């Protein structure tokens, strides 16, 4: 490589920083959607780089399903403190209490689908006109056609047939009153890029990503963590297993995999040799072949 070329991680970083700065310049009231997962942690890190030595000029929004890994919450609170940014919490429990949504029942009950309503309410109540998230195009089929600047109508909905064309690096953030945008600065990153970047930049992540002995049960092909929200069925046997999580979502649907990767280097090796997609362990995507697309249309990330 010549002296005047970037590595792919440097190029992806430069692109993401450019996108984050465009959001700051083009919108009045943007925010970062922060789940506590590795992708949103990387977005937070990139936002820090984009504005340094100034502070990140956006609040962080957490959509709290109430079914959290305690470690994720502790991590979130520490990061918010370290960065000196404002935290806005949208509570799914509140949406349930207000009657805006009804809790799912049954053995596979999850609050994942309810997040959408809470997210849209939180955006509306706070007048956010752009929300940045850590979604990536490689995660799932429906995301392969997502734009960096994704326009949402005043119902927060995504229309895959009517997306604005996005050319070069000219992003069009113009909108009418009540409409808003989702922006995805790391659209072009793969799971591998994210892990390599975390390793290269030595970014702190929740310890759930590292393999450890955990109390789990076997459901739908992965190890679900035991928690107060799990209803045990006959034959369910909680046991201690060396597992780690490839994604962090709602604790009731995020399956772990058996692993001995307890360092970032080992995780990178494991991801490199993995033959399963990371969302393969997400119960929410298993509901139907177009599960993700249907949720996206309604306003999910």
């Amino acid at each position, binding site marked *: 490589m010549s002296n005047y070329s970037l590595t792919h991680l440097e190029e992806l970083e*430069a692109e993401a920083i450019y996108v984050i700065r465009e959001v700051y310049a083009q919108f009045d009231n943007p925010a970062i959607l922060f789940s506590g997962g590795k992708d949103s942690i990387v977005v937070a890190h990139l936002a820090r780089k984009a*504005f340094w030595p100034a502070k990140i000029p956006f609040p962080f929004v957490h959509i709290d399903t109430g079914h959290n890994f305690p470690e994720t919450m502790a991590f979130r609170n520490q990061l918010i403190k370290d960065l000196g940014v404002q935290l806005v919490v949208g509570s799914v429990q509140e949406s349930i209490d207000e009657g805006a949504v009804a809790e799912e029942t049954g053995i596979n009950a999850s609050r994942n689908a309810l997040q959408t309503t809470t997210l849209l309410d939180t955006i509306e109540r706070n007048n956010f006109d752009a929300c940045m998230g850590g979604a990536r195009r490689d995660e799932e089929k429906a995301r*392969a056609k997502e734009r960096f600047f994704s326009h949402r109508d005043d119902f927060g909905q995504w229309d895959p047939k009517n997306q604005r064309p996005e050319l070069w690096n000219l992003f069009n953030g113009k909108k009418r009153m009540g409409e808003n945008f989702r922006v995805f600065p790391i659209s072009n990153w793969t799971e591998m890029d994210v892990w390599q970047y975390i390793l290269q930049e030595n970014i702190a992540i929740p310890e759930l990503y590292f393999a450890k002995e955990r109390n789990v049960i076997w459901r739908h092909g992965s190890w679900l963590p035991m928690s107060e929200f799990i209803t045990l069925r006959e034959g369910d046997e909680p046991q201690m297993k060396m597992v780690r999580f490839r994604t962090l979502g709602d604790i009731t649907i995020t399956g772990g995999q058996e692993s001995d990767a307890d360092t970032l280097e080992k995780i990178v090796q494991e991801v490199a040799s993995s033959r399963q997609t990371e969302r393969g362990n997400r119960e929410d995507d298993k509901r139907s072949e177009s599960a993700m697309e249907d949720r996206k249309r309604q306003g999910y990330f």
Partner: protein
Amino acid sequence: MENTFDTNSYLNMELLRFTTAGSVDDGKSTLIGRLLYDSKSIFEDQVAQIEATSTKRGLDHVDLSLFTDGLKDEREQGITIDVAYRYFATPKRKFIIADTPGHVQYTRNMVTGASTANLALILVDARKGVIEQTKRHTFIASLLQIPHVFVCINKMDLVDYSQEAYDRVVKEYTDFAAKLNVQDVRFIPMSALHGDNVVTRSEHMTWYEGGTLLHNLETVHISADYNLRDCRFPVQTVIRPHTDEYHDFRGYAGRVAGGIFKKGDKVVALPSGLESKISGIHTLTGELEEAFPPMSVTITLEDDIDISRGDMLVRSENRPEAQQDLDVMLCWLNATPPRPRAKYVLKQTTADARAMITEITYKMDINTLHRLEEDKDIKMNDIARVKIRSTKPIFADEYNQNRVTGSLILVDETTNETVAAGMIR
């Protein structure tokens, strides 16, 4: 994807963005599926999913084209309708594919996919040779100044892997492309269906001495694709920390669009014309001695001059032209045609201006490459040479000199939709 993965080599990979264009039947989806499958970029759960779908459709083989099927509507129609992005990596490079459909009505998607690509794959059916769509795709690749074009002569299995068939297509294509400004053109005979010359060398075409498609993708020289000569730094935003430690810090944040900026360089800010010197190039991890495309940095100057978003830092002896009347090749992207004397928002680098199309010089017939000087009726997917009048000067380079400072989009003031993409001449 092998277990012998080397962490360090991964950190030193380059990124290659390429676009694929092809029509419904020429095997584009199969080619991409083959590329991903043979380079072991497809996960087991994805393989299981398409195996199930193939069986459900009554096929006796795994239909590799199903990997690139995207949204539900398309899966039902069996065609792709929008630009979809795919990712894969080999131990040598990381790749981003902008996969675009090739029907005539989707010129806008091809232009979109081409706008960020270093390289275009153009599929040709070996039985059919150069057809209208081949010409259209090549024209768009040349219009968007994609530096490298690989012509994939596919379905060689259906012409008995014959060298004559290959030579005929090469000659046809070369004759046609001579009229266009395409730079690095390579030809690869292949069968995507059977995997010949995609990732592994074909045993059926020993007469072909070039490398496989993947080998060419991994080795094509791309670091010269940026303009390193003309210094251009469009300012995105101004960074003022207002903290005790950085009390007087006033940095200009942006992405280098051309040239190499060094600490100590004399620069001039446009449009003000005020001069200063670069006092520092800042990043979170420390100051840099120089910055080049496409780096995102923050530049501080020795003098306190008034600079804001939309301004551009350049060298005083090498300035882009300030233009209010722009000569542009325009691709119309919207279902609503341009209205006479309608105002649009013109976006170029980080600058916005109001603008109007004042003249339509000619329309291109993208199949024959003829100029249509009588028909000036612009519709979606049309490409036309136009004059645009802007309310304020735009600091632009010719698109063929710089794809960042030479490109623009038009946004409809009423609907806020991006209605056109333009290349400045």
